[in-house]
């Protein structure tokens, strides 16, 4: 196995992303290239978005509802803490062995990693909304669901979005080892060393890092757009 790679390998890795390259294990065959990189990048995004969507559909309404009622703190916060302790490698490995490989099996399992932060932050965000604002909303005759949608959610946006960002990054990171359970992603470059070689290994790492930063950046921008100007003043 590879020990120290020379610093120059970064150049090789960047070339690998843009045009097919020979590598140390390919025996003269050229692998990688822009089309392949994009194909895997899009597949990586697909898994991530699908899993995040599943996590959102389950955790967001539940977290908002529990926060609104001020109930289930144990469940929401406890799950949030316990969720961080789950080793993603074990999860992916177990899915492959016990449930089966492929997207339909892996996406729901990746979603499980996204549920705790979303649930926890939705709960905390909504339960910390000033009760006076909620009382006022009730006082002017808003229904409970309208209170959640029009008062609590907008005020809790920074916290709620924080949870979604954590979930997105956790899912995206774990999608990197999804190839272990038969789902293609940028992780293929990293894990299939005897196909893509050292160049592919580093190229995969670079692409995963950039993708994570891009997703995080976009979600941060989205959060800014969604946050009312009235709430921005106090953020330090």
């Amino acid at each position, binding site marked *: 196995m590879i020990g*120290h790679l020379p610093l120059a390998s970064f150049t090789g890795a960047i070339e690998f992303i843009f045009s097919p390259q020979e590598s140390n294990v390919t025996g003269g065959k050229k692998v990688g290239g822009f089309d392949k990189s994009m194909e895997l990048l899009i597949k990586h995004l697909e898994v991530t978005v699908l899993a995040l969507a599943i996590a959102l559909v389950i955790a967001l309404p539940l977290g908002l509802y529990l926060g609104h009622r001020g109930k289930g703190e144990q469940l929401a916060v406890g799950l949030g803490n316990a969720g961080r302790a789950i080793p993603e490698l074990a999860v992916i490995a177990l899915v492959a062995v016990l449930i089966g490989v492929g997207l339909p099996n892996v996406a729901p399992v990746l979603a499980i990693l996204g549920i705790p932060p979303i649930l926890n932050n939705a709960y905390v965000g909504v339960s910390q909304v000033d009760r006076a604002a909620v009382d006022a909303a009730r006082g002017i005759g808003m229904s409970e669901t309208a209170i959640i949608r029009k008062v609590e959610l907008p005020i809790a946006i920074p916290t709620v979005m924080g949870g979604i960002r954590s979930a997105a990054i956790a899912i995206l990171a774990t999608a990197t080892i999804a190839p*272990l359970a038969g789902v293609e992603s940028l992780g293929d470059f990293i894990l*299939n060393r005897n196909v893509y070689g050292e160049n592919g290994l580093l190229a995969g790492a670079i692409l995963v*890092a950039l993708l994570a930063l891009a997703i995080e950046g976009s979600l941060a921008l989205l959060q800014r757009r969604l946050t009312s100007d009235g709430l921005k003043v106090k953020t330090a």
Partner: protein
Amino acid sequence: MGNPFVLAAGEVGGDFFKERDVGDLCQAQTQHVFCFDWARENIDRFEAPTVQHLEIVIPALVIGFVVAFALALLAHRTRWLQPPLLAATGILYTIPSIAFFFLLLPLTGLGRDTAIIVLSAYTLQIIYRNTILGLNNVPAAVKDAARGMGLTPRQILWKVELPLAIPEIIAGLRVAVVSTIAIATLAVLISAGGLGTEMYGSNLTFPTSIIIAGAIVMLMALAFDAILLLVQRLTTPWRRAARA
């Protein structure tokens, strides 16, 4: 496409089946979710990876804490540093550890050192942000009173601000500790050992080992979390008094 994990299994745990004759204990072991006979016979084999896991996690956390704490104190005194430091630690936090491991290969190579560097970089953001948060949450009136009573800036920091920031600092540490213990399983990918060695490799088809290793990871996280919670209780008696 072939089965990627078979291709990837490569060097790390390839000798697993040769070493341990699983078949004797659990016939048709792939159909067993959990093979108690094997677990009973082989529990010892988890000792070394557990120790290795701690040897990665503890130094990473100590380094992460010392650096993040120092950065937070620096940014507390030099306010304009707060946003750039938050952004910088945020980038380190966002880069998935698995990518980070391999990005460091040309610099630090395979092994434990790389794992420790990546994991401590990962913890910086959580600990830094919470320490700053804790320091910023100290009521202005308390600082004003302290200053007016003749505490020097150093005394205000160490006797007033930091003690009051303990709950936030420990909250950050708890998140960092639990996440780091879980993520350290990935260290197996760069031959740094740890409990990941019992989850990844040829034994991917043997769930009992994965389950035991996963359970040890989670128990370890739980134990560290409980210790930190206890430390917080002991160092902040005034918070319990407030609730009583």
